[in-house]
């Protein structure tokens, strides 16, 4: 028996907007039933990749297949088997939760009875049954995201694309959504999820791919990636920038990698691996001994910035393509307008 085709297979994908290479030769493979966390700052090409894979955008070079179907040659076959929830909830404010899902079902070519039954089923599953017949305008941000996610699931997609599913949500709604996403994955859905948060990619992804300026700069499991970054980070904020040299020298021996100084934040950062609180105590002791005045000192989990610093030597830049920028601006404006 041959091995089943990858749920998502991408080879040498290139997409340019004017002179910007939004995707610059991306290779990816996602096995069926697994979760890929696509991590990167704004403008790194995450959304562009999702748009190509969901047939919304044509690549300039390379190939992309979803469940064995080429996204360019067989878009209908791809669309029948995927679900997409974009960065902003594509929910119709004037329709009720039920109507939103019912309509999505019919547009996925379910017959009327099935579409209605499926809508009801999903509303119950996502804790929206009570709000089912209220217009979505009055939904909270979290409810709206759940409804949007539900809409992407009406046709029971085998592969689901979630583009920054928790951006803009409060911490509690974020946790709720994570648990919903975990349930989906348990049911065997293949998931490609983009995020700007390392923690989210870590929580949900089997494999994390880091994207920067349209290129894959790292891939691996969360622990492996964290190992590359150096695990936890001790950050020491200085009172006097003149102390920077002394602080770097003092903290050098406790790190698993060379300490860095961020002038803007007046902050010395040193990756300490899994040494944890012990490393923090040691850092305090050493800085005190060398009479470095501290505004703040903390132990924290690595952030996207740390990953980028470790992988690329530069912080995650927010430079994006013009197309992405104007799209975001437009959506932000549309969203602002939608607020009651």
């Amino acid at each position, binding site marked *: 028996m041959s091995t089943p085709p990858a749920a998502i297979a991408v080879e040498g994908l290139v997409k340019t907007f004017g002179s910007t290479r939004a995707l610059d030769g991306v290779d990816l493979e996602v096995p069926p039933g697994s979760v890929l966390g696509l991590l990167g700052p704004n403008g790194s090409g995450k959304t562009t990749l999702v748009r190509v894979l969901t047939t919304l955008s044509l690549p300039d070079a390379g190939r992309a297949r979803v469940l064995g179907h080429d996204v360019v040659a067989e878009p209908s076959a791809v669309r029948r088997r995927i679900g997409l929830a974009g960065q902003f909830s594509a929910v119709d404010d004037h329709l009720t939760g039920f109507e939103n899902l019912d309509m999505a079902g019919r*547009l996925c070519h379910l017959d009327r009875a099935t579409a209605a039954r499926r809508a009801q089923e999903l509303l119950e599953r996502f804790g929206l049954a009570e709000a089912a017949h209220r217009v979505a305008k009055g939904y909270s941000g979290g409810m709206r995201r759940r409804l949007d996610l539900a809409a992407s699931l009406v046709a029971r997609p085998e592969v689901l694309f979630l583009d920054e599913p928790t951006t803009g949500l409060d911490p509690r709604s974020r946790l709720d959504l994570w648990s919903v996403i975990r349930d989906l994955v348990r049911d065997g859905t293949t998931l490609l999820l983009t995020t700007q948060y390392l923690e989210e990619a870590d929580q949900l992804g089997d494999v994390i791919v880091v994207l920067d300026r349209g290129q894959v700069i790292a891939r691996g499991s969360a622990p492996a990636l964290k190992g590359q970054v150096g695990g936890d980070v001790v950050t020491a904020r200085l009172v006097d920038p003149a102390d920077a040299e002394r602080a770097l020298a003092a903290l050098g021996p406790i790190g698993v990698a060379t300490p860095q100084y961020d002038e803007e934040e007046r902050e010395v950062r040193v990756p300490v691996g899994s040494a944890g609180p012990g490393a923090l105590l040691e850092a305090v002791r050493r800085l005190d001994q060398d009479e470095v005045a501290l505004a703040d000192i903390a132990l924290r989990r690595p952030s996207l910035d740390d990953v980028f610093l470790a992988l690329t030597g530069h912080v995650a830049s927010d430079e994006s393509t013009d197309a992405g920028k104007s799209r975001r601006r437009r959506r932000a*404006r549309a969203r602002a307008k939608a607020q009651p």
Partner: protein
Amino acid sequence: MSTPAGEPGIAARARWAVSDSRVLTERYLLQLVRVPTVLFFSLIQPVMFVLLFRYVFGGAIHIPGVGYAEYMLPGAIAQTAAFASFGTAIGLAYDLGRGLIDRVRSMPAARFAVLVGRLTSDTLRSLAVVIVLLGVGYAVGFRFDNGPGPALLMVLVAVVFGLAICTIAAFVGLALKDPEAVQSFGLVWLFPLTFVSGAFVPVQTMPGWLQAVARPNPVTLVVSTMRSLAYGGPIATHLWESLAWVVAILAVFGPLAVRAYRRAS
């Protein structure tokens, strides 16, 4: 040419295209019902125009051989049909911004169902507004003198003209993408289009240079057609000229709107 595996055939595609467009037409009509204030004001504004023109300006404008109510009502109806295109343009720009168009395009639904559904629902809305305006018109002195056949044809001309303008607006909405920009732009072209015409006053009363613009204006031709159908005049010439305009607009802006829809993201 063979269809790639997994791609539906022409017949199935056509059937789904109709069904998908219907679902989206329903959606837009539901939106209209859900926000009754929008519906209310979209009716109040043209009714107010009819009353203002009839009673404020009407006394000062003398049209030989016909009362001003009868003269201006076809103009007000054509203007209203054109102004309905605001809804088309703003609605599409809004859907685009909110990712609703992307959502539909990532589904098996027919690609242009959004466009077709939007234009169908806007056409139905135009029809409703035209009927309301005819009712108001009757109350202030407008009468059909040519019988029911031409009367129905007049309504049809107004609605088809409205569809043509909505097609321009669909292109504008999808090309500009920003609801506010779309709204401002709508004012810029729709006011001159409808007022520099024979909609409310005879073109002969305008200065010569303006007549040169007003005479070939599609609004002038469409309104002339409607007047001929309502109470008499040369029907055939006006009808053909209007039809030519409508066909030309659809032929140019239909493909442009489709292209903008395809490229929009």
